[in-house]
């Protein structure tokens, strides 16, 4: 099953295209992947830290304006990440560290859906010095932990090549 998926990924035109871009396409895409990571931490990470009680005085409404940049970084990383997986599918499909990364991403995704459907409306109206409700703090902690997990598992992929 995984064998077929991996073979299919590597037989696609996207895979051929990415590999045919020359030797610099891989390191440059990795560099973009790192920049996307920084954008994500610089927006989502800082919002999480504010929720957890750091930098009081900044309202949720004000700091939340950073989020589009984190979304931009995430989309950049989904794009470059997709290129990596199509370009060298074997290295990811059979890689335990990559699987852990996907699990962390999944939990972060479910957590963010919970946050915007339950917590965000309540905290958006809070004053700049207000403490966040416990459930929002828990969600911010899960978010931060998951993104740290994504970075750790992501960076370890290369050491768990099949």
């Amino acid at each position, binding site marked *: 099953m995984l064998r077929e998926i991996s073979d299919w990924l590597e037989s696609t035109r996207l895979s051929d295209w990415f590999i045919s871009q020359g030797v610099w396409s891989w390191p440059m895409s990795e*560099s973009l992947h790192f920049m996307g990571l920084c954008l994500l*931490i*610089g927006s989502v990470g800082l919002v999480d830290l504010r929720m957890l009680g750091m*930098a009081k*005085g900044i309202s949720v409404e004000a*700091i939340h*304006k950073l989020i589009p940049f984190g979304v931009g970084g995430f989309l950049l990383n989904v794009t470059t990440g997709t290129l990596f997986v199509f370009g060298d599918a074997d290295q990811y499909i059979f890689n335990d560290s990559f699987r852990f990364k996907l699990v962390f991403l999944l939990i972060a995704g479910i957590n963010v859906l919970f946050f915007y459907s339950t917590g965000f409306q309540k905290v958006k109206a809070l004053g700049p010095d207000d403490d966040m409700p416990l459930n929002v703090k828990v969600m911010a902690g899960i978010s931060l932990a998951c993104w740290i997990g994504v970075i750790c598992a992501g960076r370890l992929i290369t050491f768990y090549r099949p």
Partner: protein
Amino acid sequence: METFFIWLESSTLSLWVRGESGAHMAFPIIIVFHALGMGFLVGVAIAINGRILGVAPKIPLTLLKNFIPVAVLAFVVNAVSGILLLIGYPTKALTNPVFYIKLLCIALALWNLSWFNKAVLTNPNYDQGDLPIRLKQLAAASTILWACAIVAGRLLAYTYTTIMTF
């Protein structure tokens, strides 16, 4: 120089970093810390740069000072992990011009960040409204420097000529 490389590369600490003394996870763990530190240091720096450039204008600029300890901690993590990686593979880094470009970019970007911290994040006049164009130019330049440091850092894995002298 060769004598120095051989001495360093055969040291106990260098062997430990490379995982040759049995600690196979030492190198991956150091690398992981280096990536995490990068995320938080550059993350805080570009958030400050973005705010200076006009992003999220309702954040009082002086309050972004609260995130500076995060950047300082991240820098310490990366200085320590970076030095350990250098002790592990001194020839690989020090014989590659890209390594010096990376250090130069980081030095300039840190110099800029510490100046922002000292002179801009302390000035309540900057809390609201548009900022002077000179500060915006510096913020843009600093963001480019961090991007260059990241590219140079990533390229270290692709542009080295010699891994070890030892």
